């Protein structure tokens, strides 16, 4: 005969012992809250929702053109190399074969060497991370430089306020730096 006397568990422990399995099922529900953002991001990265969160419009670059879009409809994101704004672009249907490289820069480039950041990716969906200097004026222009396989170079521009109102809002919030 065992003489061990069972000590009744504390109320808290009794609650835990009784409900622990149900409480753990609730844990499985937590990821559901993150699902809408997860699927929205997945669609954005895959291109199912278009070029980017906000399509800025067409930019005419000599005989060619491209569709420019903000990857995310928000201001530049911090980076060790300075604030970066991500743009996506698609070349026009008949110029995809002719254009070798596409560059993006705030302000008119001084030369082809300093044409800005290069777009990566396929002609139908290219991406570039554009450094946005904190002293960028609100009336700045975004310049697109295209280099063709035939050696020609063409340039076109779009006002930054049209390309990315969120960046202008970000610049205004920062205040004009001296």
């Amino acid at each position: 005969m065992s003489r061990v006397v069972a000590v009744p568990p504390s109320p808290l422990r009794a609650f835990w012992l009784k409900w622990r399995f149900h409480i753990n099922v609730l844990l499985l529900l937590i990821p559901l809250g993150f699902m809408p953002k997860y699927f929205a991001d997945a669609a954005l990265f895959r291109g199912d929702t278009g070029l980017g969160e906000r399509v800025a419009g067409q930019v005419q670059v000599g005989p060619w053109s491209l569709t420019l879009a903000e990857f995310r409809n928000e201001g530049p994101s911090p980076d060790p190399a300075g604030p970066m704004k991500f743009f996506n672009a698609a070349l026009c249907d008949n110029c995809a074969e002719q254009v070798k490289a596409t560059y993006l820069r705030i302000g008119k480039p001084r030369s082809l060497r300093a044409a800005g950041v290069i777009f990566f990716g396929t002609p139908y969906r290219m991406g570039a991370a554009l450094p946005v200097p904190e002293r960028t004026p609100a009336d700045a222009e975004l310049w697109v430089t295209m280099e063709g396989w035939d050696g020609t170079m063409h340039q076109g521009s779009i006002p930054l306020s049209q390309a990315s109102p969120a960046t202008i809002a970000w610049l205004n919030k920062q205040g004009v730096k001296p």
Partner: protein
Amino acid sequence: MNMMHPARVAAALLCAGFSSPALAHNPMCECKEIPGEQIQCKGGFSDGSGAPGVTLDVIGYDETILVPGKLGEDSTLTFKKPSAEFYVLFDAGPGHVVEIDQADIQPQ
């Protein structure tokens, strides 16, 4: 064996929290004036790597190359401040450039 050890759970959460979806390496360059009418520029990339041997040219506003240079082993280049108006171009390849105007070079 206890897979749900609190330390393991904490480690897994930390890994999930600090993982970055993409690590780009954008070119970076900084120039400053140093004693003796000289300018020192230091190049690198945003992933923390240096840029020894990368081209750094000092170019006049009229697009003439005043000082053709390459960064040394310590990723820096020191040159005499040109008398004409100029800008510094850190050139790590097409689309991987940093331009620094003379107005953006901090005086000593």
